[in-house]
Structures are given as C-alpha cells and as structure tokens.
C-alpha cells in the first residue's frame, strides 16, 4: 500500500493524520482511496470532472506526476505520494 503524505492544510480532514497508507496501484487510485476514507478531501483534490485540481501538486516520491503519467502513474507499495499545496506565508 503506497503511503500518502498529507499536507498540514488537509490534516483537519484526515483526523490529524500526516501519513496515510491506502490501497491502489496508481496515484489516482491511491488518492481516490484517500478521498473515500476522508470524504471532505475529495473536493480539494479533484475537480467535478474527476481531474486533479490544477492548484494541487502531486509527487510520486520526488517526481511531479505531471511529468510521469499523471493520475495513471503506477504506485508501488513502497512508494510515497506527496500532496503539495502552495503556501504564501512569509
């Protein structure tokens, strides 16, 4: 089961969990599994059409899934999926 790293701004929706292990063989399946377990994350991750929101960056380990196969990128059990939000605090 890949591990999803949850950013601080989404942790309220994941009961405070910073890392969640989920099922799924691709990045998209893993994120969907997260959204199923914590339904309030769904709108923040996905557009109504089911695409990743443009303001959500997702990495498989250290690589942006935009340069891989997007949501279809294969994710192995040992992989980490990082959800990265932009922050503007200074």
């Amino acid at each position, binding site marked *: 089961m890949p591990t999803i790293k949850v950013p*601080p*701004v989404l942790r309220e929706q994941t009961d405070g969990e*910073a890392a969640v292990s989920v099922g799924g063989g691709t990045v998209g399946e893993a994120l969907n599994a997260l959204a199923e377990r914590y339904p309030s994350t769904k709108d923040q991750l996905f557009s109504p059409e089911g695409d990743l929101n443009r303001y959500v960056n997702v990495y498989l380990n250290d690589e*942006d899934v935009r340069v891989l196969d997007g949501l279809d990128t294969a994710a192995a059990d040992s992989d980490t999926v*990082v959800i*990265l*939000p*932009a*922050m503007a605090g*200074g």
Partner: protein
Amino acid sequence: MASTETLEDIKARIEQVTPAEASSELDAGGAVLIDTRDAINRQEVRVEGDEYAPAGNGGIESHTEQFGDRVAELAGGRDQRVLLYCNVGNRSAVAADALVREHGFEDVASVAGGIAAWEQDGLPVLVPEGMSAEQRNRYSRHTLLPQVGVEGQLRMLNAKVLLIGAGGLGAPAALYLAAAGIGTLGLVDDDEVDESNLQRQVIHSTERIGQPKTESARKTIESLNPDVKVIEHRTRLDASNIIDIIKDYDVIVDGADNFPTRYLLNDASVRLRKPVVSASILAFDGQISTFVPFEGPCYRCLYPTPPPAELAPSCGAAGVLGVMAGVMGLLQANEVIKLVIGIGEPLIGRLLLYDSLGTHFTELKVRRDPECPICGPNAPEIPESEMGKFPDYELFCAG
C-alpha cells in the same frame, strides 16, 4: 627545545636577519622566504613572493617531520638558504632552530621582529585589495574558507540584494545577509512593527513597536554592520512600481505573505531575468526553492495556479513557529550567498520542504513547464513598451 631553555637562548644560537637584509637577499635571489604563521594572519598581510609552511602556535609544529619535509620541498633541498618569518619573530626563531638542529637544514635564518618590523621599516607588503583592515578582520572567518576567499567576500560587498518583506522570512534573512557583508540590502515592506511580530522577526525589537519595519530593520543592520547600505522601499509591491524597484538588484529574496505579490514578482523577475530565492512558511512547515529564469523552472512552473483561500490560510490566521521561520529565512540567506559568490549547488529545479515538528527535510524535483505562460517556449515576448504592464493578480488569485 628543552624546557629550561628560553626564547632568548634560542635566538642567541640561531641566525637572525633584519627585514631589510631579508628583503635584499630575496631581491638578489637564491633564498626562499617562508611564512610560518596561521592562515588567518596570512590573509591580512604577507610578503609578496613568499611561501607558506605554518609552524603552529609557539612553533610547536616545527618539531614534526612533516614541517621539515614541507620546508625542504619549498626550498628545493635542505642545503638551500631559508628565511623564516612570523608576526613578531618568536615562532620563526623556534622553527629556524628546529630546522637546523632537528631536520638537517644547513642555512636558515629568522627575520627579527617578523612582519610587524617588516611593515614598520617601510618594506613592501601584500594586503588584499579592496578591503580595509577592519573588513579583513570582520570577514576573516569567511575569507579563510577557500570557496569564499577575499574575492568571494568582495563579491558580497559589491552585491545588491532585495528582500520582499521584512517579516518572518525577511527579518532573519536580512540580519544574516547584513552580517555576511552584502553591500546593499533593499527592503520592501509597508508594514509597521507589531508586538505579535517579535516572536519571529528578530531584526525588530520591543522598543521599535509602531515604527515602519524598513526603518527598524535599517537601524539594526546599521548597528550590526556599517559596511551595508540599506535602501528602504516603504511601499507595497504592485504592478506600477515593481520594475523600478527590482531592476537594480542582483538577487531577490521572496518572503511575501500573499499570492498576488508572489505571482507578480515571478512574472516581473522572469522578464528582467533576476534570480529569486523563494520561501514560504505556515505553522510548522516551510518550503524553499531558487528560481533562476530560463536556467531552471519559475514559480509558475511549480504552481501554475494559486489555491483557493481555504487551502491557503495566512500565518496570521493559522499561526507559525517563529524558529521555523528563522530556519527558512536563513536557508534563503544561504542560497543568496551561493548565488552571489557563484559556489555550491543552488536549489535550482529543487523544492526543499522542511517539517519542523518531525525534523524532516524532503526534496522534490521541479521541472520547467513546457506550457508555462511566463518562461515556457511559447510564452509571449514582452516588448519594451509593455515591460511594466501586468495582469490583475488579485483577480487571478481570487480564482
């Protein structure tokens, strides 16, 4: 040296020469002059054309075989004429004695009075150009680093760095950049010092509450390092002033507290090809990357669109650990110094995340976006007449 011996005993049995005699011998050729002091002294002043073999405190290293071998190598043999000097002529006397009595040298003299007498006698010495005696001392721990040296320090003294925001990131960054000797620091901030800032904005102080942040920061910087010229931009960056403000700086430090300013700064800095060291902070987490236009990705390659407000709370709303802000601000200062001197590996194409609660650093790759509307291959050319015109970022960030 036996323990009952005094320096006077040693000086009595070795050959000593005056600085003038040593200088004539060097001019005539046939002798090698060796500096036996520590590296830090050597940076401040030395004799041109000398060689270097540190003899340790009190000359203690001169008793080692390595010292003898090093001097033999520099002189071209143990039968060659060797002149040693140090600061005042004590260490070199001990070393000269060791060379003759312990290492088999035949023709060694110590320069009486050392470099101090050399200078006093009006003989030429070499001092690093472009730095005063005070600066050589102030920045000695930098110039000792081979990667920095006098040249790197001079680059810092000649550099102009602009800080966007004199707050959680800008305050620690400005403080350390000032200490490092960045010659010109520009500060953009239209805020005043508030008591709630002081838990992290260490460049300000309790007595400066209510003062403009740029003024408070300038006072601290001036008392820390008189070499630094501070330029206050007591305003908020916007489309009408950004080109004028940033155009004269070499590197920009982004510590802005809002998305419209971050996108505006990105678009303007790409137009003017200015490197931006960008960091952001919230709660216990920080992010930092270095954007060098067309060499690596820009801020928009990383974040094509800003998040909605509920996903981007401010530090004022969500809180921020002051120390974490300091860590991120200092990482920015570190990046600036590398860019200015041209050393190391800047965070170009890399995003570094810092989770201060877990003490985890995570590095992510950032690629140039072929679709980037600002720095991508299909980005529109901006004619000179349009250089200062920008879209409405408030609207863009409001979604």
